[in-house]
């Protein structure tokens, strides 16, 4: 069930340059079904900015009915969000979409989690849940530059973690795909910029791969057809999937990216 709730901010801090970690209390935490689901946040009561902002759930604390998000302060909406402190009530719609299937890997297998920039956050809850199932987890996380790197320590606690930066200022220089090619895995879960997802689908689409897509949204619940992608290899075909309600996670090959 999707809920609209006024959620109390428990904490908010800047954990890397322009990267904020926001924890809120919400009754709908019990409705969260899988890592990779997201919420839609109305950052202000006014109508400017008008639209809600989609942000992934990065970790869940069911016991305390809390969940955490990690986002980059970019434009109008996220800049306003970054100013909000503990105690403030945030209008959040969630949980939305379908997340990463954790049942697709089995005990003793290896899952490769590949994140790019602001696509890294949802992989953290995924990593936690896979570890709990006795699955070996390897992380490859790509960032622009050293100051943008976050959560290295947290991921390291769960398993092997490789960091790449585009400018080489931290970890190895280059892209996540440079690292993946030397790794062994049974399944691959990824979230990040579209070019990265494309490269991964091209290189490893024959394996068990799950991709989390990003698209500009209106409603966030499947009603407006803003976030639609083609679900067939035939561009002229009319079959489609909605990123907000059918995704954001899709199996490689399920949709055209």
């Amino acid at each position, binding site marked *: 069930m999707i809920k609209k709730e006024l959620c109390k901010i428990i904490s908010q801090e800047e954990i890397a340059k322009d990267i904020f970690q926001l924890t809120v209390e919400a009754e709908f935490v019990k409705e969260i079904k899988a890592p990779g689901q997201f919420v839609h946040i109305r950052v202000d009561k006014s109508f400017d900015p008008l639209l809600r902002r989609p942000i992934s759930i990065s970790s869940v604390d069911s016991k305390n009915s809390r969940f955490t998000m990690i986002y980059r302060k970019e434009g*109008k909406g996220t800049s306003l969000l970054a100013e909000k402190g503990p105690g403030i009530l945030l209008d959040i719609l969630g949980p939305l979409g379908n997340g990463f299937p954790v049942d697709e890997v089995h005990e003793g297998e290896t899952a490769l989690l590949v994140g790019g920039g602001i696509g890294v956050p949802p992989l953290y809850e995924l990593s936690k849940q896979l570890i709990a199932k006795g699955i070996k987890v390897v992380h490859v996380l790509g960032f622009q530059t050293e100051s943008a790197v976050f959560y290295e320590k947290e991921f390291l606690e769960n398993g092997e973690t490789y960091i790449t930066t585009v400018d080489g200022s931290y970890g190895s220089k280059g892209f996540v795909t440079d690292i993946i090619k030397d790794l062994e895995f049974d399944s691959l879960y990824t979230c990040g910029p579209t070019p990265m997802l494309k490269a991964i689908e091209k290189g490893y689409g024959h394996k068990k791969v799950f991709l989390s897509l990003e698209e500009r949204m*209106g409603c966030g619940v499947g009603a407006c*057809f803003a976030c*639609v992608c083609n679900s067939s290899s035939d561009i002229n075909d*009319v079959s489609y999937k909605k990123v907000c309600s059918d995704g954001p996670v899709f199996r490689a090959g399920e949709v055209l990216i």
Partner: protein
Amino acid sequence: MSSRLNIELPGLTLKNPIMPASGCFGFGREYSQFYDLSKLGAIMIKATTVEPRFGNPTPRVAETSSGMLNAIGLQNPGLEKVVSHELPWLSQYDVPIIANVAGSLEEDYIEVASQISKASNVHALELNISCPNVKTGGIAFGTIPEVAKQLTRKVKEVSEVPVYVKLSPNVTNIVEMAKAVEDGGADGLTMINTLVGMRLDLKTGKPILANRTGGLSGPAIKPVALRMIYEVSQAVGIPIIGMGGIESAEDVIEFFYAGASAVAVGTANFVDPFVCPTIIEELPILLDQLGYEHITECRGRSWQEHGQLTYHRA
């Protein structure tokens, strides 16, 4: 309470004058998770075309100050699926459906109108001659008065329910358009559709929307909608379902003052999925504050002579 909000319009017996606008509510399924759709006055379903349409490439939406641009491109599952799946599903709710009819050619409109108007829960058609996001048809029908009139006439001939024509604000003379479709036999008008606009990406210098231009909706267009309804409602003898930026009970009253007989809420559903039932709950309270017994007393106050304002108690 609701007896203060009920409205009678051609083909439509409305519990209240609030309905979600076409394209902002799909076919109702998504919002039925949030509340009982029977609370609504009516539902304007997503545009339906003869064949399924995929619509435009993404990005299809871009935010603007107090508004948004969309270029969905009339994506819909096509006439057959709407008639066989969506309308029967909606029939579980006690709510009249207004079917939004779109096309590229005159034949398309006629085909959709004649078929969809047979569905038992479709109580009226909304002839969409004003979508700014399709290359052919659509907007051409909506910007040339004579063309709009002829299309209205043809659709009237085949439709089994009253026909409301949805007007485009992207014209120099909206009154002329309204009169033309009234001449063509329209039973009512719905207005306004979105205003053509554009946003550019600061980094690339290119349009944000893949379609380059899109239709502006949301609170930003409310003054334009009010002005157009104010002009048109004085010039025609058919009722107007008003829309454009409505997000509160106050907005609804303003639209009635301008001359609307009912209203539709579009973009605001994205901001608050509960906006329609919330407005329906708040309207009687606002009517009390303003001193009206029934919402129809508000209609056309902006242009009525003072002598006609006999209901006002405040």
